[in-house]
């Protein structure tokens, strides 16, 4: 069978259409790879029967000549997406046993395009985390190692990142509320894009912070992200924030020509104590874009420093409201009650048993910042700061900047368990470069661009103008070509 590590969505699409391989063969190969990769704990619900049936249908469709790009392509689906009849529990104990009676819009679109679902992927509980250590399924593990230590694949889309990096699927869905696609992509040497807020329907995706959540693809390269993103995008009447706007052919935008494009380098992203390796990676990336003909411009985004604190008001506030639905009445876990317990005890015990520590913490912080007397001081103030953060970007784009280059993360992947004793804010700092993009609703992409002294992958982030994912993907493509990142993790699992 084909060497799975060499396949991409684009090359598989071409091979499928030429008849060099069938979707059934590809799917079986990936199912085999997943079987042998239990140590990564990336796939947490396996759906081989669905995969085989979808692959058979895809093969018929490909033979008939009516095959969209994603037809026959084996994917992993983050556990946050509701998939009909298949466990979808956002890696939470409170949704134990939950099997939706409906299919999310994103998975509906992917399946309508002929894509194959291999299974559901590990993640942080309710997408709250940056290391995949808050999952009810246990940690997902990064296929990259050094010193024989198990490393985090990042979070919250840690299972997605691990699965793509370890060649357990050709691509995976991710979601990104504060960096949950881009940070794990950077930690595992793959590509991930969070599109403009409103580009992809949130319907059927378990809600964390509704004004920030966006789904996107996690793939092996930029071209694959372009192909898969296009299949995920589009207006959906079932999501009132979904934009009614034509979806361009993103792959066609990948010319690699970025001559005359203005790339902004924001000085506020040069953080105190930033590791020299990250600084060098950023400088190298800047040089690559310059060599490719882009114009480099120093820019300022003065409110950057306040993005994380604003996020840690807004995201928990929205989460406390969204997660109010987990009450033990309509779906999921209900606590065993003692004699005399009433409905309040049922709610309180159910939520204490069902939610993990980080989710409880965020729900309670959200409750606090929304409570009487604090709403103005915290929540309204954070929404005002958010408006200022967006204005910073608006001004830079209005002055002619086409895209902004920053590091994706403040470090390479760290060890699982390393942050156990750190206070929660240390973990939150992982999102320092990515969270601004969610607050401003912009598209952002992480591209692998180098390795650190231990041989671990490092990523750069490009931020684009709203609704111009095509242009952004093209700049990312030029960066990818110049960086020539080809390193792969050595198989140990």
């Amino acid at each position, binding site marked *: 069978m084909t060497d799975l590590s060499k396949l991409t969505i684009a090359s598989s699409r071409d091979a499928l259409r030429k008849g060099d391989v069938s979707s059934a063969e590809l799917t079986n190969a990936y199912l085999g790879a997943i079987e042998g990769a239990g140590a990564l704990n990336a796939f947490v619900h396996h759906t081989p029967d669905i995969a085989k049936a979808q692959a058979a249908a895809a093969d018929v469709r490909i033979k008939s000549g009516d095959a969209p790009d994603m037809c026959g392509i084996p994917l992993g689906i983050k556990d946050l997406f509701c998939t009909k009849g298949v466990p979808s529990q956002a890696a939470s104990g409170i949704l134990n046993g939950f099997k939706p009676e409906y299919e999310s819009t994103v998975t509906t679109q992917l399946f309508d395009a002929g894509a194959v679902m291999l299974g559901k992927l590990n993640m942080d509980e309710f997408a709250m985390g940056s290391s995949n250590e808050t999952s009810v399924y246990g940690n997902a593990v990064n296929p990259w190692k050094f010193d024989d230590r198990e490393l985090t694949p990042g979070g919250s889309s840690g299972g997605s990142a691990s699965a793509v990096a370890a060649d357990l699927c050709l691509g995976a869905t991710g979601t990104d509320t504060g960096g949950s696609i881009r940070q794990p992509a950077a930690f595992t040497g793959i590509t991930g894009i969070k599109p403009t807020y409103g580009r992809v329907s949130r319907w059927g995706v378990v809600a964390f912070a509704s*004004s920030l959540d966006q789904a996107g693809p996690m793939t092996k390269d930029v071209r694959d992200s372009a192909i898969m993103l296009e299949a995920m995008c589009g207006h959906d009447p079932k999501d009132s924030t979904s934009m009614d706007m034509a979806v361009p052919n993103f792959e066609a935008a990948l010319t690699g020509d970025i001559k005359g494009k203005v790339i902004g380098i924001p000085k506020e992203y040069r953080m105190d104590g930033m590791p020299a390796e990250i600084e060098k990676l950023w400088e190298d990336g800047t040089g690559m874009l310059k060599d490719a003909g882009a114009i480099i411009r120093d820019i300022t985004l003065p409110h950057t420093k306040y993005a994380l*604190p604003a996020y840690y008001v807004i995201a928990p506030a929205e989460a406390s409201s969204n997660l109010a639905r987990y009450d033990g009445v309509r779906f999921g876990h*209900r606590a065993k009650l003692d004699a005399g317990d009433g409905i309040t005890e*049922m709610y309180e015990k159910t939520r204490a048993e069902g939610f993990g520590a980080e989710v409880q913490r965020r729900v309670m912080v959200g409750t606090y910042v929304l409570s009487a007397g604090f709403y103005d001081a915290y929540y309204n103030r*954070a*929404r005002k700061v*958010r408006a*200022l953060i967006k204005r910073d970007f608006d001004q830079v784009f209005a002055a002619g900047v086409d895209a902004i280059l920053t590091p994706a993360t403040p470090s390479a992947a760290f060890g699982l368990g390393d942050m156990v004793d750190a206070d929660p804010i240390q973990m939150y700092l992982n999102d320092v470069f990515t969270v601004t993009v969610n607050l401003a609703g912009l598209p952002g992409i992480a591209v692998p661009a180098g390795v650190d002294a231990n041989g671990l992958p490092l990523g750069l982030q490009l931020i684009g103008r709203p609704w111009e994912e095509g242009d952004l993907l093209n700049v990312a493509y030029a960066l990818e070509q110049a960086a020539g990142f080809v390193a792969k993790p050595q198989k140990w699992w």
Partner: protein
Amino acid sequence: MSIDTETARRVAKLARIKVEDDALPALAQEFSAILGFIEQLNEVDVDGIEPMTSVTPQRLKRRTDVVTDGSQQAAVMKNAPDAREGFFAVPKVVE
């Protein structure tokens, strides 16, 4: 701002999450750390700035107010921890 254990207890109650008494001091400490971090926002001059309500400048779409879905009782009840005779069952609420 420092959060005391009484405030932590009140927030847990509001959030409908049972927290045992002996866990309250640690929880209060975590809240204090997070709120301390959030308080950086007080440095920002927000005079005259409207709180953001929508990150994309779009008006919500309107649709005709008609029934578009329904008659799915079985599907709606399917995942209930306790469903009886087409209803969700809960402990007694009204005496």
